[in-house]
């Protein structure tokens, strides 16, 4: 039983990261209807920026805030420069663009910071949390930051004018334009926020997976899986999906014989496909009715 609780709690902690990643994926998906395959690399690059700042002697939380600001601006810049011209291009062209961005960021990070594995500090420490052996303070901190982030986003989208405008631009762009919302800038804003959220995920998971240019590969796949599981149209669903994927991944690795670390990913993905076959829009997604 203790093993079980342990695995579930550890699952919730990693699930918090997947939830952040999934949230970032959903933010961009809502804005432009595409899955951003470069999301993980963007987060990795931000994490490197914060690491570099700390190497230069900037304290953790200052580096954290500067990185957030940098990521936000970088996200907007990427949208304005690279993806705005592709708005009218076919879907597949956009996907190719994301893959190109992935290659560019991955390779530049490798050149600037090389591919050796680096230690990344945690602001929470790694002692057992509140004297309990179940989770460490870092894991508790990860969950805490995710929850705060979620609350913040909830209030932003529910109670601010600009949050409302963003929701309007994402769901009915034509009508939003008619009431005077600059939908094109709302998309850029969505990119900026998604990049910032991704950078939080990166900085939280870096102490666990260590810092290197390929660190986000697996995390991004789980993030996608979580987003799709929860429903790509629902930020809330993305978060629930993230926690579910985290827990399931850990339990499958522990209890299904022969799975181990190698097969965790395929098993988690198989689960998701089974869920999708039963509920194609994900657990909390909007059901879309098509007409000719």
């Amino acid at each position, binding site marked *: 039983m203790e093993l079980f609780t342990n695995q579930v709690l550890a699952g919730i902690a990693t699930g918090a990261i997947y939830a952040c990643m999934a949230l970032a994926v959903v933010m961009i998906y809502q804005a432009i209807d595409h*899955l951003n395959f470069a999301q993980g690399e963007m987060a990795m690059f931000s994490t490197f920026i914060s690491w570099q700042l700390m190497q230069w002697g900037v304290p953790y939380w200052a580096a954290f805030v500067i990185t957030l600001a940098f990521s936000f601006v970088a996200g907007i810049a990427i949208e304005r420069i690279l993806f705005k011209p592709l708005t009218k291009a076919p879907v597949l062209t956009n996907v190719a663009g994301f893959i190109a961005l992935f290659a560019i960021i991955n390779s530049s990070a490798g050149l600037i910071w090389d591919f050796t594995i680096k230690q990344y500090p945690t602001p929470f420490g790694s002692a057992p949390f509140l004297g309990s052996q179940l989770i460490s303070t870092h894991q508790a901190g990860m969950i805490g930051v995710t929850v705060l982030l979620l609350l913040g986003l909830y209030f932003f989208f529910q109670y601010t004018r600009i949050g409302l405008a963003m929701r309007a631009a994402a769901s009915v762009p034509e009508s939003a334009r008619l009431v005077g919302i600059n939908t094109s800038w709302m998309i850029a804003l969505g990119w900026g926020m998604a990049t910032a959220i991704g950078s939080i995920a990166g900085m939280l998971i870096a102490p666990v997976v260590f810092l290197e240019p390929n660190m986000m590969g697996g995390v991004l796949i789980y993030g996608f899986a979580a987003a799709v599981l929860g429903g790509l149209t629902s930020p809330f*669903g993305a978060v629930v999906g993230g926690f579910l994927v985290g827990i399931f991944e850990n339990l499958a690795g522990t209890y299904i014989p022969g799975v181990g670390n190698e097969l965790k990913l*395929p098993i988690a993905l198989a689960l998701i496909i089974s869920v999708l076959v039963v509920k194609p829009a994900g657990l909390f997604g909007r*059901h879309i009715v098509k007409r000719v």
Partner: protein
Amino acid sequence: MSAAEEVVTEAPAIEAVPKRAMTLGTGTSLVVLAALLIAPVFVKNFIIFQMTMLLIYGLAVLALNILTGGSGQFSLGQSAFYAVGAYTTAVLMEHFNVNYALTLPIAGVVCFAFGFLFGQPALRLSGVYLALATFALATAMPQLLKLNFLEHWTGGVQGLVVTKPDAPFGLPMSQDMWLYYFTLVVVIAIYIFSVNLLRSRSGRAFMAIRDNEIAASAMGVDVALYKTLAFGVSAAITGIAGSLGAIAVQFVAPDSYTITLAISLFLGMVVGGVGWLPGSIVGAAFIIFVPNIAEGISKGLSGAVFGVLLFLVIYLVPHGARQVAIMGQQLAGRLRKN
């Protein structure tokens, strides 16, 4: 926001380029064919090998083109079918001493079954959801090939070494050259089959589904059947490409068939032009040679250079090589008029 219903008019997944045939004209085809036939005589074995790989990747891109350009379904999991084809050939050749040429149809049938079965649950998914499902298949495949109980057959992480065939009937050819011509014959046969398939009743059913699934089903097209059929055919052709790849490279190992391969094939299709079959070879050339060129420009930044080149392609010609071909045709037409 959850569970709310929304009515949308779906735009077709594939953007229409000015309606043209999916193939080259007869004259151009013959010129290309002649060039492909004569070229190996003048070059070294290594270049012949690269040309063989070009044909093989071209075939795999063609298979994806039938699926996406034909029936409008995405797949980021083609590397899985490629791997199954490659392993079928390797296992048959090394454990059962089957002739290499015979392994191709067997790989085709195995992959057809595999693709058809995978198409069944995938039927309910579309767009990004299908992309994720196929992506999952591609990530899982290398791990599945490493499984312990398959190790006796697959060689586990070590992989299997495949013997390269000699030219038959004592023909005075190097192994590489023989394999090139063998591949060329297979590729031409499959190309002709694909062109005819897309022009047939089934092909029109694919395209009806691509352009508007609901309208197609209202007209009496069996959407489920044709969607899974498209998956099956695409998987079978990818599998044959995988078999040829295994013979050409003389080696199969789980890590040769990762998601990177699937992404490369996808990029090849986009660069070549979605739905334009001759573009497959152009796309294959892009994914084989551009990384080398990028490496030549800067070793450390090869990924970045590749990415920048890819961006240039999609900005300048969003519809890929197909667009270039159409522009060329129009230019030629204008010159003829003057």
